[in-house]
Every structure is written in structure tokens, then in C-alpha cells.
């Protein structure tokens, strides 16, 4: 059986894929926090550009995949931009230049600028979000959390095992909603669907827990099949991230 490198493997072996997920996560969060402190349009543009470029070049994320992840972004950015602009207190300021007046609505220049800046902030956050999600392998993240983050391993691997149930819970949800249609009920969303899903989920959780116990999950002193060590690559990634952070601060 020939092992054909899959798309996921290409990402996993890329520089960003091999980097410690805790490092990339810390950087991503640092950028988010820094973005929250500015309403200049340049920092979010910088972050967006870096995130997308890094994902494509250093993460080997397929462009189509990245584009698909970014697709919902426009709606969210427009929504945030719109509300910030329209509900800004600057609109009530009589000294500000009016850009648009429509009935009782007054849109002033500073409010519009703020709206654009915040819309761009959303673009940046989503770009970082999609890029990070696409380069991060959940198992790798869990290993790093346990081995470097000192997270209790029963919780970390218990969580990882529960995440494996996602496809089946999604099917259960579809089946529960289809059942409502087949009984002549037009609304396929109902609290009972949630009850049904939780019943199936808890039963599945019970089975999973027994299976894990049967494989020695609760024994003390578990050994490790995969080791995560801090490498030079990780230091490089952190330094690069700090450089971008400095850029954000400088551009404010």
C-alpha cells in the first residue's frame, strides 16, 4: 500500500505546520489584542496580508481551501462596518462633516472612517482565523498543550476523542431533522431536536469513555507515542510574529 501524501500531510509537513501550535496560537492572539487597540486602517491590512501570505507560502495551504474559508468574511465585515458607522456617537456631533443623510439617519465622516477601520479589523481577524485553523493539526495542538502547556492529559485527550465524534453527531442532527419532515412537521428546528442530539451524544460519550478505560486511559504514567519539543523553527516563528506585532504598534 503506497502512502500517497494527502493535502493534509502537505500542510502538516510545511514549516508552519511543523511549528509548535502553542506558539502560533499565542502570536495570533497577540495580534488580535493589538488590533483591538487601534482604529487605523493600516495594521489590519498588514495582518491580513501576512496571514494569507504565510498560510499560502509557509503553510502550503491550498488556495482554494483558503478562499473557501474566507468566503463568509465579507458579510461579517460589512455588518460590523455598517453598524459601527451608523450607530456611532460621532453622527450626533453637529461639527462633523456629513457624508450621507437619509431621513433621520446621519452618517458623518469620522463615523464612516471608523466603520471602514472596523470592517477591516474583521477582515484581519478572519484572515488570521482561517489561516491558523488551516495550518493547525488538532492532535499536534493537544500534544503541545499537554507536553508544554502542562494541561492534564486526561482532559486533553478526552477532549480530542470527543472531537472525533463530530461527523457522527452531524449525521445524527440531520437524521433528527429529517425525521420531523417525515412525520409531517414543517419546522425541522425544535428544542426536541436538541434533546435528541444530546441523548445520542451522551450515549456515544458513555461508550467512548468505556472504550478508553479499557485501553488503559486512566492508568498513571502513560508514555508518549508523539513527542513535541521546542525547536529553532518555533523561536523563528515567534520572533517573526513579534516583528509583525511591532509593525502593528508602529503603524497605529
Amino acid at each position, binding site marked *: 500500500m503506497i502512502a500517497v501524501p494527502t493535502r493534509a500531510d502537505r500542510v502538516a509537513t510545511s514549516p508552519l505546520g511543523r511549528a509548535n501550535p502553542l506558539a502560533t496560537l499565542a502570536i495570533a492572539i497577540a495580534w488580535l489584542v493589538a488590533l483591538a487597540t487601534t482604529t487605523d486602517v493600516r495594521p489590519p491590512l498588514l495582518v491580513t496580508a501576512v496571514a494569507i501570505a504565510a498560510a499560502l507560502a509557509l503553510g502550503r495551504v491550498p488556495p482554494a481551501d483558503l478562499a473557501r474559508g474566507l468566503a463568509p468574511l465579507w458579510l461579517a465585515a460589512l455588518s460590523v462596518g455598517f453598524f459601527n458607522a451608523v450607530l456611532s456617537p460621532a453622527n450626533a456631533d453637529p461639527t462633523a462633516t456629513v457624508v450621507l443623510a437619509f431621513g433621520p439617519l446621519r452618517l458623518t465622516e469620522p463615523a464612516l472612517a471608523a466603520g471602514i477601520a472596523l470592517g477591516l479589523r474583521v477582515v484581519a481577524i478572519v484572515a488570521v482565523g482561517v489561516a491558523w485553523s488551516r495550518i493547525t493539526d488538532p492532535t499536534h495542538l493537544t500534544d503541545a498543550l499537554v507536553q508544554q502547556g502542562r494541561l492534564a492529559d486526561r482532559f486533553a485527550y478526552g477532549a480530542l476523542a470527543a*472531537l472525533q465524534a463530530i461527523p457522527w453527531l452531524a449525521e445524527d442532527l440531520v437524521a433528527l431533522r429529517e425525521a420531523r419532515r417525515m412525520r409531517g412537521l414543517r419546522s425541522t428546528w425544535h428544542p426536541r431536536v436538541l434533546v435528541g442530539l444530546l441523548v445520542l451524544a451522551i450515549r456515544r460519550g458513555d461508550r467512548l469513555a468505556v472504550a478508553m478505560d479499557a485501553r488503559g486511559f486512566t492508568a498513571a504514567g502513560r508514555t508518549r507515542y508523539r513527542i513535541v519539543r521546542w525547536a529553532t523553527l518555533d523561536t523563528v516563528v515567534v520572533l517573526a510574529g513579534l516583528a509583525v506585532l511591532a509593525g502593528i504598534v508602529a503603524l497605529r
Partner: protein
Amino acid sequence: MSSAPIAGPAVPEARWRTRDIVVTAVIGVAFGVVFWAWGLAWSPIEAALGPARFLFYAVWLVPAVLAPLIVRRPGAALFAEMLAAAVSTLIGSQWGPDTLLSGFVQGAAAELVFAFTLYRAWSFPVLALAAIASAAAAWVHDWVLYFPQIDPAAIILFGVLMAISAVAIVAGGSLFLVRALRQAGVLEGFPGGAP
């Protein structure tokens, strides 16, 4: 929706069994899946609501109250909420680390309320308080990150609406769900499963 106090065991069992860990996690995962599926259909409307999107959002806070109500152990709120966030990060993952951040603050806020009661009080007022705390965390997060330029009066208004919907949907919903789950017999062996 009962307002009678629901007493927990006299000395809360602090040690997590495998079953407690996995079931708490899976509850978070189930909500993550629901949130994703619902979002597929409703995201245009959610975007159109802007800061009032919390009206849809409330479902996502339920694990932070439901899971502790079932397993009654320290850390359940945070753990379940982080799992729901992890699911959102993995599928439909446009928000990435921001989702994890949201999940963390929302879970931690509810956790603080339960910790304050030493994990012994599970009556409706306590659940409502945890729900409000969680919603408040979400409110602050959204305000700082996404809606900092909005008139503070509007923000306050949205905050009040979020608190009300949190109490109804999150606290009320958790009680409804626990009762339904208990009647279905899946909560045997959990502290929250004893009527």
C-alpha cells in the same frame, strides 16, 4: 421551569472519572455542531442583526451552564465551552483563535459564578447568574473587538437584551434540557441526574 432549589451533594465529588470528562466534552461538541449547522442556514440574518446577533448566540452559551448542572464538578463550564469553541474552530472555522478566546472568557465567567458557590448550589437564580456572567463576558468581548465605535447607550441596551435572553435561553434552557435528559434515562450516575 422550576424555581425550587436543586440541591447538590453535601460534599461535591471533585475527582473527574473518564465518563465525566468525555460526556462533558461531548456535550460541548454537540452544541458546537448545532451552532455550525444553524449558522449555515442563518448566518446572513445573524450578520444583519449586527450587535444584536446575541439573540442567536445564546444557544452557544448553554454548555457553560448545562454541563456543570449535569456533572457538578469544578471546571465543567470552562471545559464544555472550550470544546464547543474547538468545534467551531475546526468546522466553519473563519474565526479561529478568536473563537477560542470567546469560548474561554464565556466559560471562565460561568465557572467563576459556580466556583463562588463552591459548586454546591444549583438553583435557578445561580444558573441565571452564571448565564448572565457568561453573556457579559461575550458582550465585553464583542464590544471591545467588534463594536467599539458604537454609541455607549446602544451598547448598554444590547447588554440588557443579552442578559434577558441569557436568563431565558441559557438558564431556562439548561433546566429544560436536564429534565428531558433525566427522563430519557441518560443521566444515571451523574450528580445532576438525581431528581
